[in-house]
């Protein structure tokens, strides 16, 4: 195993570690929806982030956009 493969494994392992992952998800949620959060996440500090959730948000926003 060369050093790049080791680095890759290490990175993946870190990505799986619970607390770090939670912190990163919370940071992304705050970046996207700030203090107010988005109602799609009942509690933005508790729910995980996913691309699908972001698509849901975009769809909801697009509907609101077309109504205004």
């Amino acid at each position, binding site marked *: 195993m060369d050093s*790049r493969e080791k*680095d*890759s494994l*290490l*990175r*993946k392992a*870190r*990505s799986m570690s619970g607390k770090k992952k939670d*912190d*990163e*998800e919370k*940071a*992304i*949620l*705050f*970046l*996207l*929806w*700030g*203090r*107010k959060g*988005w109602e799609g996440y009942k509690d933005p500090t508790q729910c995980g982030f996913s*691309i699908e959730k*972001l*698509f849901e*948000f*975009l*769809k909801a*926003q*697009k509907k609101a*956009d077309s109504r205004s």
Partner: protein
Amino acid sequence: MTSKERFWKAVHLDEPDRVPVSPYIVYLAATLAGMAPAEFGWSVRKSHKALRDIYEYFGKEIDALNIQSMRFAFADVFPSPYSALYFNWEFPPNTLPQFVQKGATYGPDLYDRILEEGFTSLILPSRISIEEIRETYTHQSQEHLEWMKMWEEEDVVNIAGPTTTIPSDMLIYARGTEGFLDMLLCPEKLKEVNDLMTPGMIAVNKFWGRMADSNIQKISIQNFTADLVSPTVFEDLCWPWMKKIVEEFLEENCTVILHLDGNWTPLLHFFEDLPPRRIIMELENTDMKKAKEILGNTLCLKGNVPCTDLAFGTVTQVEDRCRELIDECAGGGGFILSSGCEAPANAKLENIEAMIHMATTYGTY
């Protein structure tokens, strides 16, 4: 020595067999392929095909390329200056995509709004269809992965990677020129946004790094160059968060590429204390001799044949500039010969050829 060995030797501040060469090629590949820029930018298949063609055109002697499709930047669901969801990008049929900045779109209350509602409050879904975004993340991503398998068989380093900036740099794009007044009138707001939003910017890039299995992380700061702000303003409103981003990526064992357009000469000393042999600094209008003097023991310099020379200069002019750069920067390793930012779409192919020729002949150690 292979291109990959040569490139990483240079990054680790060792002398390879010759200076690695890596003109920053994006839309020049479209020109060579006879494609409209928007066509190149939006089609993953066409952009890979065009990059492949230009790589072969230059005899596979380019050591590192940005192997990517601009589509992933334009359709980015996360906040980024390149995302057509967050900012006004226009895609004229026969010329380069245009970033359209309009003053007074947002007032100085923007910073509070971002803290309250997040960066998604900048989104206008009418700018780009959700179907186009979804297509990007499904079929186009799959196509990209297929092409990457082909690229992995080539002896070329892929220096494309997720790109980030500090939050206030991005908000200055939204504020337009008024953003520079904010630096003087409400600096504490910029700091607050940077403090609270930088962890999210870092996390997004780490997310993309894991998705793409990329060991490279890029940071591109555009509005805090010495052309636009003083070193005092840079130190107060940019450097603490820029440094934090660099350090976080290094902690993840990534190689960091600092893409620094404009003039960074008066700011070079800030980077002196960063961990050595882990960072590539892509420079455009910075004094390379000074950069080598100040940072030669810390990081690998990449640059900076002027775009104007590549587009309008003669082969002799390009050769002279390459010779000068090699003389000033190549000693002891830690130098990659490149264009200053992107080799323009109208660069003369013989000038790119001259750059490669100088690296392979005059650039030997």
